């Protein structure tokens, strides 16, 4: 039978160490909502989401109450809209109408965010996919909770440099169209390489075409719990350190698994995956950067950071994998600068640079995330950043991503505020050496060779 110490440990994790389930995300296929007319597509999308996700929020709240565990977000992902709208949309404005339908439907069912205003163009763009990308500045500035992603490359296909070049310009335009809110539109957009079909986190979540009709995915969190557990390992060797991280990740993931099974049972929807990510928030004590510092760095960003992050990421996966029957999504440690107190501090002092962050993305679970950059950064430079990050993903067979926010009217050292879970970030310098000629060549970078690994 349970003992009081175990019960106390769990409740301390929840109350003092900010253990929560970050999101219950319902994936909904919209492949059956295609039609020849945009209004008809919008109507079908609205109806399907409103029906399938009708009980999502109330079910999430009931689970929170029954188990006493906060479930911070309830979200929806849908089939990439470039596919759903391809038969009906004749212009970027047509796609914007679908974005509005998604926004309305998501608000109707009361979720926090809806993802899947997306295009998968890892080899090349269809006319519809190009239109969806061109619609992003309008779509993301006119809607509130729609999130978008574009997959520009993969290990199997190479990198679509036409899309990379276009996205550099679009990111600038999204930032400009939401310049009154420090470029908030860019918070809702991410460019991927090797995007996953079952990611429950935003902004990059979408419901892949290989998925079933409806599915429930869960993203756990818990950097605060890992951080607290590491207090007891100061001065001990790597074996003890790794064992502590693994044990903690196991416990956190078991909670996620319980919530996922309950949500699946109560909603009558199959359980998809648990995403084992350590997802920080800007709150004190809920920071991946702090975990890295407890591992032994004076401040995140200095030498040793990449190795410490690689180890942390691997131990989180090793501990979590046994706790769940299906693991998927991004699974690892996120390093979103604006959502992580220790990273915000390190970026403010200049200790955490974009170049070091890029190195960290080689071993973390995603990529350059929530980084505020000067508003006068050129479109070509942003394309260059996306291309660099995609290349890391392509060659290393991992998911990488770029979510940078050029903040109009602000420069290095000033602060961009995004609010809530999205946090705030000091604007950090970007190397402005031109790559204009490189990114505007046209065509694609071929897939890498899969042998001679050196």
């Amino acid at each position, binding site marked *: *039978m*349970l003992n009081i110490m175990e019960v106390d440990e769990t409740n301390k994790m929840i109350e003092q160490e900010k253990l929560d389930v970050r999101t219950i995300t319902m994936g909904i296929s919209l492949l059956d909502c295609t039609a020849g007319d945009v209004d008809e597509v919008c109507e079908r999308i609205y109806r399907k989401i409103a029906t399938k996700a009708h009980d999502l929020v109330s079910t999430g709240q009931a689970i929170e109450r029954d*188990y*006493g565990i906060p479930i911070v977000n309830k979200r929806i992902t849908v089939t990439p809209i470039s596919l759903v709208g391809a038969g009906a949309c004749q212009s970027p404005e047509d796609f914007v109408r679908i974005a509005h339908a998604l926004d309305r439907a998501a608000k109707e069912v009361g979720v926090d965010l809806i993802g899947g205003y997306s295009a998968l163009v890892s080899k090349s763009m269809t006319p519809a996919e190009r239109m969806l990308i061109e619609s992003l500045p309008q779509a993301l500035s006119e809607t509130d909770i729609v999130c978008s992603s574009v997959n520009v490359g993969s290990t199997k296909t190479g990198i679509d440099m036409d899309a990379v070049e276009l996205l550099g310009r679009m990111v600038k335009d999204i930032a400009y169209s939401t310049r009154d809110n420090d470029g908030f539109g860019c918070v809702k957009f991410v460019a991927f390489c090797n995007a996953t079909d079952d990611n429950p986190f935003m902004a990059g979540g979408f419901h892949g075409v290989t998925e079933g009709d409806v599915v429930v995915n869960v993203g756990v969190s818990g950097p605060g719990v890992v951080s607290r557990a590491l207090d007891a390992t100061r001065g001990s060797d790597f074996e003890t350190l790794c064992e502590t991280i693994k044990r903690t990740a196991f416990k956190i993931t078991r909670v996620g698994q319980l919530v996922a099974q309950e949500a699946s049972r109560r909603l009558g929807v199959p359980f998809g995956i648990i995403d084992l990510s350590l997802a920080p928030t800007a709150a004190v004590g809920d920071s991946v950067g702090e975990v890295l510092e407890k591992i032994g760095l004076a401040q995140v960003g200095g030498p040793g950071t990449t190795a410490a992050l690689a180890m942390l990421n691997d131990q989180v996966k090793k501990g979590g994998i046994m706790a769940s029957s299906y693991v998927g999504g991004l699974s690892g440690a996120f390093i979103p600068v604006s959502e992580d107190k220790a990273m915000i501090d390190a970026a403010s002092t200049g200790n955490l640079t974009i170049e070091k962050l890029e190195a960290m993305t080689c071993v973390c679970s995603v990529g350059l995330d929530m980084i505020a950059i000067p508003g006068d950064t050129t479109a070509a430079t942003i394309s260059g950043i996306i291309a660099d990050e995609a290349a890391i993903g392509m060659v290393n067979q991992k998911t990488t991503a770029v979510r940078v926010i050029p903040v109009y009217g602000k420069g290095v050292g000033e602060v961009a505020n995004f609010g809530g879970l999205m946090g705030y970030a000091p604007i950090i310098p970007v190397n402005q050496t031109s790559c204009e000629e490189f990114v505007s060549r046209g065509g694609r970078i071929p897939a890498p060779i899969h042998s001679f690994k050196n």
Partner: protein
Amino acid sequence: MNKAVITVVGRDAVGIIARVCAYLAEHRVNVLDISQTILDGFFNMMMIVDVSQANGEFSELVDGLGSLGDEIGVRIRCQREEIFTKMHRV
């Protein structure tokens, strides 16, 4: 059997256990196990209970015990048992 864990944390006072048990009896909740200790200077009690015969919804019990805690000046939580067993038992 449908088990839940009730935890009471706060400053020690006369009659905390009596008040909680009276509430549970009234709502047909059967107490299976009680343990109590002083942790970090605070009164800390855990009860494992069976709620399968309880009258009303589980959420009403959660809210009712929460309010009782506010009255007595302690924190009372009522959670389904699985969150603890899943975390601490393989």
